[in-house]
């Protein structure tokens, strides 16, 4: 039974490695935070799995409970950051508006969407 648990843990770690692609190469910040959210949930499962392998679940379960309660604070913080600071549309640049497409977003999105606070108006 333990070898089965170890196999399960290694499979979950491989899936986390695949999700890390979305975190590192995601076009926008919101894709990245989605990947981090998924990785956090998998971490909760993996901690309990490690505890079962070590036969000390009652020690490890507090960490997992803490993760289950705390994991989504980061997600909500970044989501609030982009909910409250909505884009202002510059109506002069109609040409560039029409050229918006997912491929253009992937090329330049990581540089532009990640930077915050730069063009805020200074009063």
């Amino acid at each position, binding site marked *: 039974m333990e070898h089965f648990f170890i196999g399960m843990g290694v499979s979950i770690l491989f899936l986390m490695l695949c999700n890390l692609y979305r975190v590192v190469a995601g076009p926008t910040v919101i894709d990245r935070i989605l990947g981090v959210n998924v990785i956090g949930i998998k971490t909760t499962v993996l901690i309990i799995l490690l505890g079962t392998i070590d036969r000390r679940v*009652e020690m490890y379960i507090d960490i997992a409970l803490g993760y289950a309660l705390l994991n989504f*604070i980061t997600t909500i913080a970044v989501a609030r950051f982009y909910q*409250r600071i*909505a884009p*202002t549309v510059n109506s002069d640049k109609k040409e560039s508006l029409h050229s918006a497409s997912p491929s253009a977003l992937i090329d330049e999105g990581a540089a532009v969407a990640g930077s915050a*606070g730069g063009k805020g108006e*200074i009063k």
Partner: protein
Amino acid sequence: MKPFARIILFLCAVMMLTATVDLPDWADPGSPASTHLSPGFIEQGYHETATPNVVTAVLADYRSYDTLFESVVVFAASLVVMLVLRRTSTGTSRIKHFRPKREGRDTILRGAAQSIIPVMQIFALYVLFHGHYSPGGGFQGGVIFGASFILLSLCYSLKFAMQRFKEKMVLICCACGALLYAGIGAVCLAMGWNFLGYAGLAGLLGVTDVMARSHGILAVEAGVGITVMAVMVSLYYDLASGGDMEEGL
């Protein structure tokens, strides 16, 4: 200049990697760290302090000076952040963001926060007071308790959270935690023992020396927890609002 810096970086990496060869293995029983002090702590810890979790005993009893000044450092960090950022009137050079109205669109977030925040606070108290028997202690419990106020401020607004936990109250909690810690040490000193020698509490509480050390650890952890909780909330208030406490993240 850049390739030169890379060569230096590579050489430093090679030197550090060669130095790791001399380090002892993981879980090596013959390593210097586990031959001098650790056997003493592991063998004597439970008989001297009645605390099954050795980490808590070492942190709050054998090395309590260290923990005292750690909490003082955390307290000083919050004071410095407040000193640098806090301003009462709205300044002239502050970055103003355009924020859309969000009436009635936060209902799901607020419902989830209402169901999670009480459990989070109870869990924080459990972690704080169960630190003798399971992983956890003052620092972890304080951080989780502070995170509950951060979650309240995120899901509602900064003003709403500051009505519940006022700024003056935050500062009072900051100072009171560190004062509780140092006060216990002073009581021990007044009873004729060393500073932070918890056996001095035995006469006051009417218990044996071993149980007095256990109760002393508990009181000290509560002080650390109060300080850390208030410091986390204070850091969030100052940093998220840019110093004028008007709108948060």
